């Protein structure tokens, strides 16, 4: 990856984060299952509690500018332990990618094309992701502006169109549940949609010079929190108690839209937007995984000719940006992983509601905090040595 300086600007980063989280926003049914009619407040608390995560990541990245997560681990923990920690991170990214791909496969197989086997759906999806990464992850980030406009526009239009059917008293009673549920809801919101921006730490070397990290992350999370709140609010007031029964409340609430008998099936638009957003999300996760694997396994530094992928260069007069050479293998790995990750949808839902927050919390919170502490101690230790 001979990149002297990337081309992702602050605005691209912020909008990329928004797009990344939007994908999970549209499938936020599990939160409604936990906190029922107060779920919209979880968006607010979730945002507040995800701010520490952002500051942790920003602190880590500021100390080592221009390096991605794997390299920072190598520097902080030393070569051997750093590689082990990196393998753990990679397991996290791979699992996320496989789970999301499987999620999308389930969605498409259930609602759009019931007769197609899910293997083919996920295969075409992964081919789309691989092609996207062949063309360059920076171009994907450039494209995020249009995708964000598309998805926000879809949400706004859907919201306006269901205004006719809302029944605001579904929001009552307010805050009557036991506190443990609120904790569970908040932790779910923090870890699953918002904390996954850990994947963006793998993109750090591709930023332009002098881009800030904290501001786009915070603003991106804020915007996403607002959208999560609005979407959940819309679902609750449209569906009422139905919201926690169906598996996709957003989808169901869009089904209510009916304009003069012609525009009755707006959920196809919703499905298209969801597919595009998931393509975006899984592409970034796939990139994080493939790049990490390349860096762990290569004994050359990142900026050498050996680590360039060749398979996507066919037919290019001047290839723009190179991609990790293990791209195809990593994509195949995630494809097969997504086929056996869970046997049934119920297991998936169970995992998402109960154990997933803690699983994600270790990687999103615990490991970065440990890294920061070790870096701090080491830095202090070294300074002390020099002084004495």
């Amino acid at each position: 990856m001979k990149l002297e300086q990337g081309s992702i600007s602050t605005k691209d980063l912020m909008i990329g984060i928004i797009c990344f989280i939007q994908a999970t926003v549209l499938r936020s049914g599990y939160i409604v299952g936990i906190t029922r009619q107060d779920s919209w407040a979880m968006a607010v608390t979730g945002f507040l509690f995800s701010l520490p995560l952002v500051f942790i990541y920003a602190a880590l990245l500021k100390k080592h500018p221009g390096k991605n997560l794997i390299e920072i681990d190598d520097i902080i923990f030393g070569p051997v332990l750093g590689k082990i920690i990196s393998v753990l991170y990679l397991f996290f990214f791979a699992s996320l990618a496989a789970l999301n791909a499987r999620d999308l496969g389930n969605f498409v197989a259930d609602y759009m094309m019931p007769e197609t086997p899910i293997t083919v759906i996920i295969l075409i999806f992964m081919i789309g992701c691989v092609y996207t990464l062949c063309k360059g992850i920076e171009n994907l980030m450039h494209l995020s502006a249009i995708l964000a406009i598309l998805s926000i526009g879809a949400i706004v239009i859907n919201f306006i169109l269901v205004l006719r059917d809302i029944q605001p008293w579904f929001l009552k009673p307010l805050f009557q549940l036991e506190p443990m549920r609120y904790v569970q809801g908040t932790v779910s919101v923090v870890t699953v949609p918002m904390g996954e921006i850990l994947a963006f730490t793998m993109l750090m070397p591709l930023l332009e010079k002098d881009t800030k990290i904290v501001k786009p992350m915070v603003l991106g999370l804020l915007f996403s929190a607002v959208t999560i709140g609005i979407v959940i609010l819309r679902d609750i007031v449209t569906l009422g108690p139905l919201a926690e029964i169906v598996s996709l409340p957003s989808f169901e609430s869009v089904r209510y839209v009916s304009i003069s008998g012609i525009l009755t099936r707006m959920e196809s638009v919703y499905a298209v937007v969801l597919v595009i957003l998931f393509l975006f999300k899984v592409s970034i996760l796939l990139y994080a995984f493939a790049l990490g694997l390349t860096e762990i396994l290569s004994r050359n530094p990142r900026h050498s000719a050996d680590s360039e992928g060749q398979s996507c260069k066919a037919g290019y007069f001047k290839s723009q940006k190179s991609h990790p050479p293990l791209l195809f293998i990593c994509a195949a790995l995630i494809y097969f992983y997504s086929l056996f990750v869970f046997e049934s949808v119920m297991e998936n839902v169970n995992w998402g509601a109960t154990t997933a927050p803690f699983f994600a919390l270790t990687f999103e919170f615990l490991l970065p905090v440990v890294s920061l502490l070790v870096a701090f101690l080491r830095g202090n230790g070294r300074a002390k040595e020099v002084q004495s």
Partner: protein
Amino acid sequence: MNLLLVCIAFICIAALEVPYMVKNKQWYSLTVYSVLLVSVFVLGALVASGIKVPSPIKAAQAFYKDILGLSFKSP
């Protein structure tokens, strides 16, 4: 049938990257690549033949739920 498709797919993947590495004599990259390719191919062959592969996520779930006890109650 599925197995055949998987074989063809992996041969295509190998054909895209291996010639370049052989031409440039990157033996270390070639070994690493081959090891990875073979392992993913084995995995793919297992999945394609319908053999049940234990999922690492389930292992993680067992780890977190049973060993560490960190888990919310299902609603």
